[in-house]
Every structure is written in C-alpha cells, then in structure tokens.
C-alpha cells in the first residue's frame, strides 16, 4: 500500500512537471511569435540606390577645384575626393574609422582630418594620429578624356 501511494505521487509529479514544461515551452513559443515580427519590422531594409561608379557633376568639379576636396555619395557611401598639392586626384571613404564622423581635407598640411576627436590620416589613408583604429579605405578615381571625374569602388 505504502509503496503504491509513493508511485502514484511520483508519477503525478513527473506528469505535472511534464505539463509545466509544455506550458513553459508554449509560452516561450508564443512570446517568440510576437517578438519575431516586431524585431524584423525594426530592422531596416538594406539601402537601395545608385550603385556603381559616380561621375562628378559640373558643380561638384568646380567645388573640388575651389576647396581642393568634395564629399559625394558613391554606392550609398560618403566618399571624399581630394586634389593633393601635386594635383593628384585621390578618393577615400569619408567615414572616419573611429566613430563615423565625416572627415575633411586640410590642403595646407596634406592631411585628412576628422574634427570629432582629432583623428588624422595621411594621403594614403593611413592613421597619423588620434584615436581612429583603421586606415580609410581608398576608392579609385579617374580623370576621363573629356575631363570628367569618375569615382568607383574598386581599389585604386
């Protein structure tokens, strides 16, 4: 008798345990089925837009001549195009590798400068000083026979 009671209660506990488990799992599943659409909803779609090489407009070229640099979008990325002192055209990602500020060009010092935390890069994109951890990726820039300037993603 004693033993039988024991088995009964034991099997009840395990059954209860099993049902608890089932319940817990279904609550989790239920929550996940709510959370998943919300999470997907919040994650933005990949940016679409012009890809491929970018050709500077007339105004942009004029601005480049005047300021020695200009920032333009290339495949959805900010790119700084600059004219070095020996009139060479160079292009780099304009996004500082530190915290992503937009860099600028200091023609007098031949330095690409990020004002946000005073990061400095040389004209091959390497870090000269300041907190940026990586060099600026370089873009290819070409002057076409008709004088147009084209920037493209493939490495120079």
């Amino acid at each position, binding site marked *: 008798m004693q033993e039988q009671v024991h088995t009964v209660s034991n099997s009840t506990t395990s059954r209860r345990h099993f049902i608890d488990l089932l319940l817990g799992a279904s609550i989790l599943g239920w929550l996940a089925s709510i959370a998943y659409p919300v999470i997907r909803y919040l994650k933005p779609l990949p940016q679409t837009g012009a890809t491929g090489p970018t050709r500077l407009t007339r105004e942009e070229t004029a601005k480049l001549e005047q300021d020695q640099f200009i920032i333009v979008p290339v495949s959805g990325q900010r790119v700084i195009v600059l004219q070095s002192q020996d009139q060479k055209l160079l292009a780099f990602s304009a996004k500082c590798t530190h915290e992503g*500020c*937009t860099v600028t060009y200091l023609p007098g010092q031949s330095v690409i400068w990020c004002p*946000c*935390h005073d990061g400095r890069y040389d004209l091959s994109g390497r870090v000269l000083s300041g*907190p940026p*951890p990586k060099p600026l990726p370089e873009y290819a820039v070409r002057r076409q026979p008709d004088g147009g300037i084209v920037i493209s993603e493939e490495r120079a």
Partner: protein
Amino acid sequence: MQSGGSRMEGLSFLKNEPDKNGAEPGRGLLGWVDRRYQVTPLLEFMRHKQVPLGSHWMGWYYLGGITMFFFIVQVVTGVLLLMYFQPGEATAYESIHFLTTKVPFGWLIRSVHSWSAHLMIISLTLHMFSTMMLKAYRPPRELTWVSGYLLFLITLGFGFSGYLLPWNKLAYFATTVGTNIVRSVPFLGDWLLLVLRGGQDVTINTLYRFFAAHVVILPLAFVGIISLHLLFIQRQGMAPPISAKVAPRGMKFFPSFALRDVLLWLACLMLLVTLAVFLPYGPGIPGMDWELGSKADAMAPAYAGIKPEWYFLWEYQLLKEFPPHLFGLEGPQVCLFLIAILLGIWAIIPWLDRRAARNKPSPAFSDFGWAAILFLVYLTLMGWDIGATGAGNDMSLVQRSARVCAWWTLAAGVVMIAFRSWWFEHRWFVLTGAALLQIALHGLMGISYLLAGAISAGLAIIVIAASYFMTSRPNETGTT
C-alpha cells in the same frame, strides 16, 4: 513631539473631515467621494507623513521634487512644440526654423524646453549624488535607488534623442558619433546600430525613430518608473540620517514640507523663465547652446569644435583618451566596456555598500562618490577645453589644455578634501587621492590618461587591501 492635526488650518479642502467616531464620513464633496472610494485612510496617511530632520541639510530633500517640476515643464512645452514640429527630410529643420522665427512666442517655448532640459539634468544629477552621499539607498530602499538610476538613464536618453530632432548639422554629427558607440556592443552591436539608426548611416529614418522615442517611448517609460519611484518613497518615507542615535525629528509633509516645495517650484519657474527670455539660445558655452545653425547635410564634413551636450562631454573626452587599440580590441570597444562597468557599479551600490546596510558610516563609499565627481569634472573640463580648436593644432595645445584642467581639478580636489575633513569629519580619502593622483600624473606629468589611471587604481587597491588586513583583526574599528 508631534503636534497632531492642529496644523491643518492651511488646507481648507481637508476641513471636511469624517467625525471622530469614524462612523459616518462628512458631507460635501469630500464626503461624497469618500463614501464611494474610501479616501480617508489616504488623507490620514498624508496627514501623518513626515520628513525626517537630521544632521544634514534639508535642501537635499527638495532636489527630487525640483527634478519632477522640470519634467512637468518638459511635458507641457514638449506638447506645445509637437503642434508645430514636422519630422521629415524637408520639414524637420524648416518647421523648427518657422517655429522660432515666425510663430508668436515659438522661440520662448523652445527656449524654455531647452533650458528646462538642462536644469532637469543638473537637479537630477545633484539629487543622485546627494542620495549617494547620504546613503539613502541603503536597505530597505535599494529599489528606490535603482528606479532613480533608471530615470537618470532615461533622462539622458531624452537629451540624446531630442538633440537630433531639429535636424541641424551639429545634431547630425553628435548623433553619428553617439549611435556609433553601440557598434561596440559584443555580438549584437551591428544589429543594434541598424535598429537605432534605421539604416547604415544617420538619415531621416534615424530622426523618425528618435522622434518616436522622444515623444512616446521615453515619456511612457519615465512616467511608469517615476510612479514606482514615488510609490516607494510614499510607502517607506524618506531615509533618516545614517546611524541616527535618537529617533529623528520630523517635519510634517503637509503642509510644512509641501508648501516649501511649492515655493521652490515657483522660484524654479522664475529662474527658468528669466534664463529662457534673456538667453533664448543658451549661455553659448559649447555643449549648452541650441542655436539652430545650418541644416544637416550628409555630404558636409564635420567641422572644428564639434562637441556633444555638456553632460556627455566626459564620455566624449574618455573616448578621445583611448588609443586605437588596447588588449587586442578596438579602443572605443574597451572604452564602452569601461563605461558599462562604471555604470553597472553605480547601479548596484546599495548591495555593495555592506556597512551602510548595517546602518554604519561607510567612508569608502562616500569617498567613491566624491572621487566620481572629480573623475567627471576633470574629463568634462578637458572635453570643454578646446583640445580640438583650430585645424593646425599640435600636441602641445592638447597638453596645455590638460595641464590647465588638471590644476583646476586639483585645486577643487584639495578644497573638497579640506571641506570634508572639517565639516563632515571625513578621514578616508583613498579613492579621492587616487583620482587626484591620476589627474596630476596625466595633466602635469604628461603620462597617458589610461596609464595614469592604471597606476592610481593599482595604488588605491594596494592601500585598501593593506588597510583591510590591518584593521580586520581588531574588528573593523579603524575605518570609521
């Protein structure tokens, strides 16, 4: 000791009390409400509510109320601003411009909103530090501390998200840098960044998300948590001074304390309006300036002197002090990790401070609070100063700035120690000492900030360990 209900004359609406037999509630509106909702116990509770008077200055008790006052101002002015603000690429900046230039008193509403935001952060910070110094967080009030801490974080979130809404250049870069920091979160970083910005970069989509956060998500969270915070305080009363030998004297909450509260709120309103009218675009110090400037432009370079709001300056400066790489990780990653640890410690102070939990003075934790102030002040001063002025600066300019900031902070630290030992009779200054040592090593001797920090922290640990082993045998008498 307590003067009973004789001081209720000031509150005429409470005159209609239930009769003393407690049988039948009174007549009139109060009676009508009471018969339905039994509010008498609540009124009784309020009537007996007391604010403990003790060894410390009462002023600290008002800071929470003042913070709440500024929050209410934020809600009211925020709703007013909402009636003109139009989020959108072609409208966000334009609508704020219209608001401040064309709408009658639009400038004033915006100015009050901005001023009140800054004043709210100031009073909230003071409130938090005074709670810390008075050890009001000790059991059973741990959750009051935690909820207040969450309110502090939410308030910073308000500041950060509101900053972007005018869609001007400054906001654009501040948001770029500020959001980029989450990229350093392990595993989730990239996903978080996308969700926060609504894309790879800061775009108008970011503004939509920040707008939703600023006007709906954060206010709801704030109201929810502050309700808890106030409920906790109502249930437990305010913390009596630590190790009070005699039962603390009390001041009646109604009407004595409440009227003082109201008076102070009026004073705050006067201050707020005066500032808003005479300095509608802020005092003009970097980080406390809301001149609209020019519109955000993703293709414009950042410019010199870009700074976040003053209450984020310490973080901004800390980010600058980290080298590109450290321990095989990227500098910003380690920096974020350090900040997370510091904020984490701050959150769980009630559980760390074992001595205060036993209602004993805990000088080490007082000192921790004071050292935290020095740490923040030094970084903030450096962030303010000007390391980044002019394109042509060299290292010496940064060093010069560090030296000036170090002298100021050291002077403040010495005054602080003198004041504490004289006024509060503090005798434990290890952490303050370590903070000052770091400042001296960095600012005056030119050792790198992190190395200076490591040296000072190491020394502090040695001193604490030594004193612990020396005093633990005679059983903790020496540390008070």
